[in-house]
């Protein structure tokens, strides 16, 4: 059995870097589309609002409302879409 090829990740010049952690991806997505307002809150409160924000996004996208950054939610956040926010502001 050959060892699985270890993929080397390269930074391509001119590429708009999108290598974000899942949390960064979610934070950016929720703010950009109006689920999370960009006003910074204290640690605890921001956790509550993030979970709530994730649930609102899951409802908008017809996903199971878990409040967690599960696989289907992260997948949805990576899909091509319109730039207009989902939450009217």
């Amino acid at each position, binding site marked *: 059995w050959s060892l699985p090829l270890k*993929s*080397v*990740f*390269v930074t*391509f*010049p*001119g*590429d*708009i870097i*999108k*290598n974000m952690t899942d949390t960064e991806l979610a934070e950016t997505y929720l703010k950009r*589309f109006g689920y999370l307002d960009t006003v910074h809150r204290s640690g605890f409160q921001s956790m509550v609002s993030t979970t709530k924000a994730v649930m609102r996004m899951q*409802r*908008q*996208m*017809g996903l199971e409302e878990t409040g967690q950054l599960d696989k289907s939610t992260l997948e*949805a956040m990576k*899909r*091509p*879409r*319109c*730039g*207009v926010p*989902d939450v*009217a502001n």
Partner: protein
Amino acid sequence: YQTFEGDLKWDHNDVTYRIINYSPDMDSTLIDDAFARAFKVWSDVTPLSFTRLFEGTADIMISFGRADHGDPYPFDGKDGLLAHAYPPGEGIQGDAHFDDDEYWTLGTGPAVKTSYGNADGAMCHFPFTFEGKSYTTCTTEGRTDNLPWCATTADYGRDQKYGFCPSELLYTFGGNANGAKCVFPFVFLGKEYKGCTTEGRSDGYRWCATTENFDNDKAYGFCPSRDTAVIGGNSEGEPCHFPFVFLGKEYDSCTSEGRGDGKLWCGTTDNYDEDKKWGFCPDKGYSLFLVAAHEFGHALGLDHSNIRDALMYPMYSYVEDFSLNKDDVEGIQYLYGPKTGPDPTPPKPTAEETDPTDDPRPTEPSTTTTTRPVDPTKDACKLTKFDTITVIENELHFFKDGHYWKMSSRSDGKLQGPLSVSERWPALPAVIDSAFEDLLTKKLYFFSGARFWVYTGQSVLGPRSIEKLGLPNTIQKVEGALQRGKGKVLLFSGENFWRLDVKAQKIDNGYPRYTDVVFGGVPNDAHDVFQYRGHIYFCRDRFYWRMNSRRQVDRVGYVKYDLLMC
């Protein structure tokens, strides 16, 4: 559905729009058409009308841009954000912006409109064969002037239909040179350029001078992207260079190696490790029509919907036979009300309106088609083989190369034609491999290559892939069709045939079956099969084999003398 706060909407129904600039990904006429069709989606269900302006300020200003394109919401490179639009109002309100780091198509891969050649600007047909080789992109093979070209039918050798593909050597778009082609080399800021460049611009668009010296003449245009061009990266518009070396290994095709997002990319020089020149490989792209219809929904006052099948759902998904979801219609009619009054087109005479005491000829088709003979010198009797022969409205039709002839069903056997296919069925390509009329619904099915069209009167559905009917993607073309009782049609290809349940639009189980097993005694490589006056005809070259209802071959003859009555 949602509307914007305060139910923002236009205070007039005759909305205007203006296209400020174009994407290099598609011919400007295709972009114009996509936007026009996107507006029609909404004008079909409301009292709204959309008028295009070519100068000044329109309600909806449409533009393409990349990354930071002049408003507070920058785009984000390939994929991710595709476009955005603003709700109705003054200034930037109502405008629609499209991210030009995307690959704009009609949603199913390169949409390449040809110019010059002999195909009247028809679209490239991919794949096409040329001198025994199959091509899925434009090619310069067979030419010494390095101009990319393509066939507009599946088989160039058979049809000789071709046109030239977008290339800066043929024309430019935008700029101030009225579409003149590039001049290479040209001088810009004292430096010589042998190809298009993004130098001197911050928006990443490739341009060229249309004279030898831009510094003196200031004449320029934007370079259309070739269909083989990479997207994004740092080599916008350049073709892949195969093979190319990456991390010491040689690649002969696009790869996702080195990336965590699985996107296919390629080097645009022979050695990525040294030159670091790369781009994303062309994929299906995003349907400009679908994205524009969504964005125009915003520009009319609709916000996002949470109905997954609604056009106003935030995420993109390609649909072949698009129609507005009920949710979209309810939303836009909440703002502007339903469409009022009939279309201005006069009602068409229908069969029952004609006086039965009229001339006993078969009832004229309910859709009045004005077809004019195109080239009387084209003599059907000089043709040895037709693309397809079939019965439509009780008359035998002979198709060849964009023309057709029809044999009156009266005993005098008068042949009419040649008539123009594109006049009567504008959506169809030049070569029709087979066709049939569904006896129940009177719908006409046309097959060409791996695609099919369904005409109901003047309206058409398609092209769609024959895989939608459940036919395998290995089929090059459908060569014959036989109606078998109510709602079943046998479709022939090569040595096999399948049975289509027309109502279910699905192939029945237990197929394919071998033609020569079921229809003994006829050639199993017939290029045409049709039903006529109670007999089944299998055609190969100049001959036909006629089979009676007991599946006995009761006659072999010449198409020319027995069917065309030459």
